[in-house]
């Protein structure tokens, strides 16, 4: 495969307009709206301001199209689109227009509006950014000026400057240091005060103490030069190191915002809309989050059940692969208990809600992401634990060095003490792990992989065994027809045409497979097509003959004399087409589960990397061995190395899967699990690292560490590479942080580091850590498999 060129990558990202056929009425639901809209009263009228994410927009020109589309709607007051953050903020009049109106207008243009999860935190972040910028400017500008005033003192010979001019310069330095101290450095003081109230010594404490000591002595030296504080002023060093520290913090803030922005981009989805029938028969489309127990929901064909409930109609056909791992539809009648997340493959039916599961996918992802960014990985916790006693040691060293120098040369004492306080940087130690992991998490998020636990990056780097589930993981949910056999009386082409025409009315996966593989042009016209959900489809052709397409029993319902040649063993679903009035015309379609195209490649790559592979599935033996065999097939000219499985197990119950995993872990293996579905949840939790391919409502009950939203198994290989690179960077950072402190503190104690150099060193040390971590968020990591 050719290496992706820069242009190719850009072109691939610049996807252009989408086809948007969403009905955005769910965004008008006030419950949903308040998540991304604020209402204010302006000049007596009510105004609403909404922030939404624009999907499909990648440049400024697209921004124009979106702006034009929204502005056309009457009642829209202002539109502000940002191509960089892909967000639009619209001020509109709730009396004259609705969100869905202009959302649909944008949809017609080819871009999709989605509610912004962080609509309310965006203002917070902007405020933080603004104040950080102002502080940085104040510190920098005053530093420059104070350095100018200090310059004569450095270059003049002693006595060359008249004393009143000298005093003037010092006074001017003092005046300009005040804004730096009270406006710019206030963050350090606030943080140190917060820590002091909690009885802790935090990272800003030595910095604050150093600043205060330096300022106090310099002020005393300015106004009482003959006093005991000495006559040295440090205003230039003081402002300089405050500037360096703030510069480092500003960079970190920007880097964190970029990472958070990348994670945000995955979080936006349209909330699930459900049709609810009220007691008086009125039907209303509301957001799934507003469901309560005893609501009557009308579940449409193809919709996932939004909650647990009881069927109120007969003839319910569901795909319960979430629960059983099998995508064969299950038939239910009135009174049966149904599970949230099952897919309705039959006709619409009514459901009485008995339990509202956890919130929709959207809220689940939000909480996943929030948890990932706040949960501290093990190494980071370790670093934090070291940081606190380290700081106490630093204080003692500073006082000790100061006292020692007081004996030797009192002039230096203060400068040495301040230098020791400033130069140490436990912040580098604390930043080492989180910056690297967050950078990787952000980069993975851009590629569509959600990282739920940052700690999982460390574990992933150490994994030596990977266990795969079969259905839905190595295979797609869809079936495909492997072969079609028909009787001599029925030409195969006609069999396909009839089957395709019949199957169109059914939502069964087998029917969908047949429809996909038949040519719609040759479909004959059929009358009286009827979908007998769960069993098959029937219809009459132009000659009036009745055809049945479906299971063996349904197909031979009126034609029991179909010859037994028709039946043949097959390790997958089978569908029969039989003419009810002429038993000699029959056809059989043997269906296979579709393997994911990158499954074999991924397995081979993992094997080549030295990992052991296992396949554990709840499905029957024939199906599992069939899949394992097909994974070994390849149409490459040179046969690749066969897959060596550690274990291939079929018919495993969840308990058996769990026991298997525990056995491996007890023998010292670090096990990763790739699966999906509720029945895998306990096994996913037991595994050291868990992956799931994010699809449909399964996400709600997902406990996996990584969610691969694109469904590409090949991402696993890339993720392992990323995890190993992350751990390498983390180790580099930790080594740097330790070495820096070990070197810098003695230097400061020996008096070789003037305070300004100490400030520079401190800022640089944490900058080095942050910059090293940002290496992980670029495209330096080769994306090994992108199929």
């Amino acid at each position, binding site marked *: 495969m050719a290496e992706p060129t820069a242009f190719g990558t850009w072109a691939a990202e610049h996807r252009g307009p989408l086809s948007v056929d969403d009905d955005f009425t769910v965004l008008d639901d006030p419950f949903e709206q308040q998540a991304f809209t604020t209402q204010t009263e302006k000049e007596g009228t009510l105004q609403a301001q909404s922030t939404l994410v624009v999907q499909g927009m990648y440049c*400024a*020109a697209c*921004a*124009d199209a979106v702006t034009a589309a929204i502005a056309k709607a009457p009642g829209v007051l202002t539109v502000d689109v*940002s*191509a*960089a953050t892909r967000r639009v903020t619209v001020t509109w009049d709730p009396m004259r227009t609705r969100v869905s109106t202009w959302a649909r207008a944008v949809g017609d243009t080819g871009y999709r509006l989605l509610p912004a999860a962080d609509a309310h935190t965006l203002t917070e972040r*902007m405020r933080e*950014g*603004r104040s950080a*910028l*102002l502080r940085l*400017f*104040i510190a920098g*500008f*005053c530093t420059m*000026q104070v350095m100018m*005033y200090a310059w004569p003192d450095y270059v003049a010979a002693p006595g060359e400057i*008249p004393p009143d*001019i000298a005093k*003037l*310069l010092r006074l*001017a330095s003092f*005046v*300009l240091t005040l*804004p730096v101290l009270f406006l710019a450095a206030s963050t350090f003081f606030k943080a140190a005060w917060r820590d002091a109230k909690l009885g802790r010594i935090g990272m800003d404490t030595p910095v604050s103490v150093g600043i205060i000591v330096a300022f106090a002595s310099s002020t005393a030296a300015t106004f009482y030069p003959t006093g005991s504080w000495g006559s040295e002023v440090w205003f230039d060093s003081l402002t300089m190191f405050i500037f360096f520290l703030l510069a480092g913090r500003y960079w970190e803030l920007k880097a964190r915002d970029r990472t958070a922005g990348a994670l945000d981009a995955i979080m936006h989805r349209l909330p699930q809309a459900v049709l609810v029938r009220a007691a008086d028969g009125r039907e209303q489309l509301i957001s799934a989050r507003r469901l309560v127990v005893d609501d009557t929901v009308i579940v449409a064909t193809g919709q996932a059940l939004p909650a647990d409930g009881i069927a109120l109609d007969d003839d319910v056909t569901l795909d319960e692969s979430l629960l059983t791992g099998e995508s064969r539809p299950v038939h239910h009648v009135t009174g049966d208990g149904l599970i949230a997340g099952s897919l309705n493959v039959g006709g619409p039916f009514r459901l009485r809600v008995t339990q509202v599961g956890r919130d929709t996918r959207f809220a689940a992802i939000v909480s996943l992401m929030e948890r990932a960014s706040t949960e501290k990985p093990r190494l980071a916790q370790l670093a934090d634990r070291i940081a606190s006693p380290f700081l106490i040691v630093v204080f003692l060293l500073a006082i000790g060095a100061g006292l020692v120098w007081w004996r030797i040369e009192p002039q230096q004492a203060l400068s040495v003490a301040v230098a020791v306080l400033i130069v140490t940087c436990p912040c580098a130690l604390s930043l080492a792990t989180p910056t690297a992991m967050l950078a990787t998490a952000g980069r993975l998020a851009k590629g569509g992989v959600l990282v739920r636990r940052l700690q999982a990056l460390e574990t992933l780097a150490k994994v030596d065994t990977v266990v795969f589930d079969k259905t839905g993981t190595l295979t797609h949910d869809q079936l495909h027809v492997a072969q079609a056999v028909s009787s001599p009386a029925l030409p195969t082409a006609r069999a396909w045409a009839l089957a395709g025409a019949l199957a169109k009315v059914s939502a069964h996966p087998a029917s969908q497979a047949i429809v996909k593989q038949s040519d719609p042009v040759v479909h004959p016209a059929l009358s009286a097509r009827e979908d007998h959900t769960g069993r098959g489809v029937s219809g009459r052709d132009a000659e009036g003959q009745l055809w049945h397409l479906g299971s063996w029993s349904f197909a031979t319902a009126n034609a029991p004399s179909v010859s037994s040649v028709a039946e043949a063993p097959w390790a997958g679903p089978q569908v029969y087409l039989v003419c009810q009035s002429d038993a000699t015309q029959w056809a059989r379609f043997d269906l296979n589960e579709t393997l994911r195209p990158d499954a074999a490649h991924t397995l081979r790559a993992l094997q080549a990397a030295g990992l052991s592979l296992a396949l554990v599935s709840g499905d029957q033996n024939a199906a599992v061995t069939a899949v394992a065999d097909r994974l070994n097939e390849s149409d490459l000219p040179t046969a690749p190395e066969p897959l060596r499985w550690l274990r291939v197990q079929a018919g495993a119950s969840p308990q058996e899967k769990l026991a298997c995993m525990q056995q491996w872990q007890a023998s010292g293996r670090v096990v990763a699990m790739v699966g999906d579905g509720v029945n895998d949840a306990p096994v996913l939790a037991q595994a050291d690292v868990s992956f799931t391919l994010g699809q449909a409502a399964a996400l709600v009950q997902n406990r996996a560490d990584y969610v691969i939203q694109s469904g590409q198994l090949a991402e696993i290989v890339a993720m392992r590479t990323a995890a190993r690179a992350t751990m390498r960077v983390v180790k580099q950072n930790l080594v740097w942080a330790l070495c820096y402190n070990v070197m810098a503190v003695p230097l400061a104690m020996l008096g070789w580091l003037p305070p300004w150099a100490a400030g520079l060193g401190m800022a640089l040390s944490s900058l080095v850590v942050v910059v090293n971590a940002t290496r992980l968020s670029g495209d330096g990591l080769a994306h090994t498999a992108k199929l």
Partner: protein
Amino acid sequence: MDILFLLVSISVLLVLAIMAVFGWAVYNGQLDHLDREGERILHDD
């Protein structure tokens, strides 16, 4: 060298004034989306 008294005092006041102006610029949102400034030329109006 007495002129320094005037010059240094003026410079201090000037610095304070410049910082005030920058503060106004930041809180007025002028520096919020620096990356979009380059794109403004592409807008129709």
